[in-house]
């Protein structure tokens, strides 16, 4: 430590000295640009946060593939329903056959009863005849008793089969099942947005943030079954349902989000 001499500030070289004004000017321009970008970013972020907090019309497009969980689930459900339907057909056929057998028995034993009745009355000591007649009466009564039960069962099976056929038809018509054969697009709608979604409502997607929006199709139907997806802005998990959509612009399926009913900023 030299206590006597003073410490002189370092002198920049001549080149640096010559460049100083340009460097400072560049720094100022860069600073302005950076701060401007931060300011714009901040405004956009705040605007976006407020917009998404209040928006209740967003729909997330989902492209279905055979591997999609909902498609696989629907395929399994259809297979199961068809198996049930087949089992019901077999059961109905069995019941109908059983009914025919009963009818045949009724016919036979009714005839026997009619024929043997007078004979048994005429020969009261003929034990064989008496036993045959009693058996015919008993079998006839028994068959008469069984018939309405089996008949009711057949009717029930017919009704169930009609319902099952409808169920199979409904499942087979699902876009999830159709996704096994061709690319299908559905839309996720959280429960809080559901009041704004109905069949026929127009869908929009936007470019340039949320500025340039155009119609891309419409909602066809609201599908059953709860699903979960993430919010397009904050990635929070949302509960909701899928809607079947008909897109006039296929590219809209790859967008992050669609809006239902109107453009998000309808005046633009």
């Amino acid at each position: 430590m030299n206590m006597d001499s003073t410490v002189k500030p370092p002198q920049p070289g001549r080149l640096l000295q010559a460049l100083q004004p340009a460097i400072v000017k560049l720094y100022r321009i860069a600073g302005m640009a950076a701060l401007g970008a931060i300011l714009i970013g901040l405004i956009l972020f705040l605007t976006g946060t407020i917009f998404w907090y209040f928006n209740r019309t967003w729909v997330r497009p989902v492209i279905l593939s055979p591997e999609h969980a909902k498609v696989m689930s629907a395929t399994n459900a259809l297979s199961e329903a068809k198996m049930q339907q087949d089992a019901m057909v077999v059961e109905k056929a069995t019941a109908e056959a059983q009914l025919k057998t009963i009818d045949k028995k009724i016919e036979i034993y009714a005839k026997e009863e009619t024929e043997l009745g007078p004979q048994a009355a005429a020969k009261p000591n003929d034990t064989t005849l008496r036993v045959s007649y009693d058996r015919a009466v008993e079998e006839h009564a028994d068959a008469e008793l069984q018939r309405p039960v089996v008949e009711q069962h057949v009717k029930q099976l017919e009704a169930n089969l009609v319902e099952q056929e409808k169920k199979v038809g409904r499942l087979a018509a699902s876009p999830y099942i159709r996704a096994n054969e061709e690319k299908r697009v559905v839309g996720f709608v959280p429960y809080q947005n559901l009041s704004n979604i109905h069949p026929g409502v127009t869908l929009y997607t936007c470019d340039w943030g949320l500025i340039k929006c155009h119609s891309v199709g419409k909602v066809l139907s609201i599908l059953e079954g709860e699903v979960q997806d993430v919010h397009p802005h904050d990635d929070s998990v949302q509960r909701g349902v899928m809607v079947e959509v008909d897109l006039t612009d296929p590219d809209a399926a790859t967008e992050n989000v669609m809006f239902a009913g109107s453009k998000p900023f309808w005046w633009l």
Partner: protein
Amino acid sequence: MLIGFFGLIVKALMMIIFINRYIAGVAVRLWRGSKWDETTDDYEPTVAVVIPMFNEGKGIAETLDSLLQQSYPKHKLTITVVDDMSTDDSYEQAMRVARRSGGRLRVIKNTRNMGKRRSINRAVREADAEIIVSVDSDVVVDADAVRQLIRRFVSPDIAAVGGRVDVRNKGENWLTRMQVVKYWYSYGFMKNLEWAFRRVMCLSGCLTAYRRDVLIKLEPLLENREILGVPIRYGEDRYLTRQIVKAGYYTTMTLDAVCRTNVPTRLPDYFSQQLRWRRSNIMDYAGGMSHVWRLNPIVAIHFFSLFGLLLLYPVLLARTIVAGRFWSTLVVHVVFAAVFGLWYRWKTRKQPASETVNPFSFMPIAIVLPVIYALMTPVAMFTLDSSSWETRGHAGNDADADGDGDAIPVEEDSDDGADLSRPQTAAARAQLPAA
């Protein structure tokens, strides 16, 4: 992958700073015991107290009276007020005190507005005392403060000794109460590591004693401070301290020498103060990159960690907010603020109620601090050449009070400095010319 690595770096820096401040610093302090804050009563040099003044109004009388009541031998203590062309009656107020000081107080007037540092330099050049004590014109100094500072010059290598700055307007509102706790941590914990190695990197200009010959030696640096031809007029107390360390001297401090300053009472004032401190921090950390690594490795690691965190923490905050984790981040800050508030309460439980504040006064820091870091740091980074926020609305420089900033350890040092750019009292504000 990259984002994960970034988060890891920030967390590592936070951990280093936390350990340095609150574990290593405290441990070294306990280990050193009575040797931690060594004193000597054999050294009794001549002392010149220098007070640069600009538009301080009646407040200057209180400052000067507190200095005239110092317990230091009167024949060895002179007081010099440098009026930097005040436009109010500050000069007359100072002269009034000078007339009843028995010749111990001298008031000199600059012929033109020179700024704080040059005003001090002028007084230093004219003084013949061995030790110069720099005091801000808006503080009140405890009667024993000068003596306590001088007692810490236990070695010729010690070139500067800083005092402790306390908040004068403690109970004025929630903002001042919050700053009370912040200042308490700044002086009680945050400088411990640097203090342990006698390499305190920021001594507040509110109350610091310097060896005059060192100030003379470094004067050209202070007078001609500039970057790329742009004069830098903020954070000069911090700059001076670092230059002293760079020149190979030791810097230390004491909590026994106390001055009290008014802290900002309004958020805009507080934010403008923080903006100046951020500029000062960035400039000083950047300036220190070339030589701090030559100091003790622990001090160097601490220094670089603070710089790294200062730059990276705003990015982490922005990422957190954009990722929608604002509330969880806020909760973390609230928890830290609560723990620090309660620790403050426990440690100050034996102090008079008038000297302390409610521990929950510190809670607003949980939101104020992230806002400052997220907004002020980038603004400061890109306006380092700004001169529009200067002290006292003229070409002076900022003063240092807080010294080392933010108590919550997830943050880095703030810096220093009482906000003299806008005197906090309404009367003083009213006297400010439109800058």
